[in-house]
């Protein structure tokens, strides 16, 4: 843990949903320009943890630091303003809206005409078309509806959108679920490209084989508790599965 700069740090995070304790004293650190795999079975608390980081809801106890500064996000908007963006397969794009309207949702460029501000549709379509083409998604026009796109194309556009708006921390929530082999490769290529550009990535999945090729470090959660943290060089995918299955770190890996 020496000589590395931390981008975001979550310290002793507790979160309860009525009687259920979803997170118990969880610590998580994400460093500058790394890909972190966040693993765990369904209901382990992965999504709750990153939702707290993304400002969807506040923690009951615990502190969050971003770029060495204590932060309290009261909405996803706050987190986005700091450069934290979540890409979630079902929650990133509106089906019945055009690609360019989705691309700029919440950050629409405007131009002033007289006393009123109108959408800069030309800029929206132009920038969106360039960005989308750069991602290798071939669409007839940025005015096409998102509903005609495949899962992979949606994922590509969501990630591309985050990159376009200079994201610092990209949170990918189960990004490969229901994707074809080719699309999976394409998304992983984009994740690596993001890292090369200096973006930190939290990659959430319950399938270690999805994230093992790209991540350097892995954090495992189970029933709201952080059960382990390993570097890629210290553990094989099978070791990680073992940790998740048994709920504890093997002696050989604890240092």
């Amino acid at each position: 843990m020496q000589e590395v700069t931390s981008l975001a740090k979550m310290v002793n995070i507790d979160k309860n949903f009525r009687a259920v304790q979803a997170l118990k004293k969880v610590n998580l650190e994400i460093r500058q320009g790394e890909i972190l795999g966040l693993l765990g079975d369904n209901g382990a608390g992965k999504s709750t943890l990153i939702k707290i980081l993304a400002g969807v809801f506040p923690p009951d106890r615990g502190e969050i630091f971003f770029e060495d500064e204590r932060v309290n996000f009261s909405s996803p908007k706050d987190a986005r303003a700091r450069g934290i963006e979540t890409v979630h397969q079902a929650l990133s794009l509106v089906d019945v809206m055009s690609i360019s309207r989705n691309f700029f949702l919440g950050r629409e460029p405007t131009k002033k005409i007289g006393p009123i501000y109108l959408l800069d549709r030309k800029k929206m379509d132009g920038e969106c078309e360039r960005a989308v083409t750069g991602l290798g998604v071939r669409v007839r026009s940025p005015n096409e509806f998102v509903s005609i796109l495949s899962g992979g194309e949606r994922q590509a556009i969501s990630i591309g959108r985050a990159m376009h708006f200079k994201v610092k921390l990209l949170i990918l929530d189960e990004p490969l679920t229901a994707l074809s082999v080719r699309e999976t490769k394409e998304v992983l290529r984009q994740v690596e490209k993001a890292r090369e550009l200096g973006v930190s990535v939290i990659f959430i999945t319950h399938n270690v084989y999805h994230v093992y090729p790209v991540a350097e470090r892995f954090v495992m959660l189970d029933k709201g508790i952080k059960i382990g943290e390993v570097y890629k060089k210290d553990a094989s995918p099978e070791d990680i599965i073992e940790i998740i299955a048994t709920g504890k770190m093997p002696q050989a890996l604890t240092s």
Partner: protein
Amino acid sequence: MKEIANDIGIENRKQTLSFSQIRRWPEFGVILAFLILFTFFSIFSSKFLTLRNFTGILTIVSELGIMAIGVAFLMIAGEFDLSVSSVYAFSGFLFVTLANKYNSPLAFVITLAIAAFIGFCNGVITLRAHIPSFIATLGMMLLLRGSLLAVTGGESVSYSSDTIMPAMLTRFIGHGFRPSHIWFLLLTLIFSIILTNTRYGNWVFATGGKKEVARAMGVNVNKVKVTNFMLSALMASLSGCIVISRFKLANASFGTGMELEAIASAVIGGTFLTGGYGTIIGVFFGAFLMGMMRTGLVMIGAPAYWYQAFVGAILIIAATINLKLRRLEM
């Protein structure tokens, strides 16, 4: 369909002008229906295609249409407002009462402010109590109408105040045209621009399309919904003031059932009942279609009762066609 889309690619999309592009124009269906009925009535009634009849239709259409724009704008954000007809009657009554006591501009402003507050209540009740807006506004509709009937005892009140607001709203301005026609056109234009060409419009679409996504992208969806509830009530109130300025008489039973006509106009105009999609120009023609049918049917000699039957049939056809078009497009 999708394969073709991918093969064409971005570079040469400009060459693919065809039926598919016209079809993707969301107002296409309603304008086509409008033209067919217009032609039909013009052929079968000699009095239909006259300026006098046109302005007569426009008067009814303006009053329904202004309400329908508000209803549709809210519907696109994913919520219903059934209370508009009661807000309409209530506003008319309030406007007349206040105008008789003070003066009409003051009465107009207070009426609109109270209507906006009713819309605000609709929004807050829907969002805080987590009940569907259909139920919340149905309750508000009955509550307002019932109170109005109880307080007035069914008696009408006639307007006996200055002519400032009536002149600005409905007094003839030549050739049978009225200011309400201009207001309707202007409001259609304004709301259309807001919806398609402002940031707020984009948020309205997103809120109705999928509110979780809109929220995740930083849109304050509750604020959008409450604002639209208020706009819906405001438009209904304006419509109520217009109709009362024209009749010079307010009655508690005015506008009963009009909320369904407004929703029908919106749906015929291509607005999705599920939210997230619709156009104000479509609503304009939807309302026009309704008004045209009302007078057109009488003119070709059909008993007035047939109007409802026709509206029902057209509503079903329009909803079916809209769904089919959506399938083709998406």
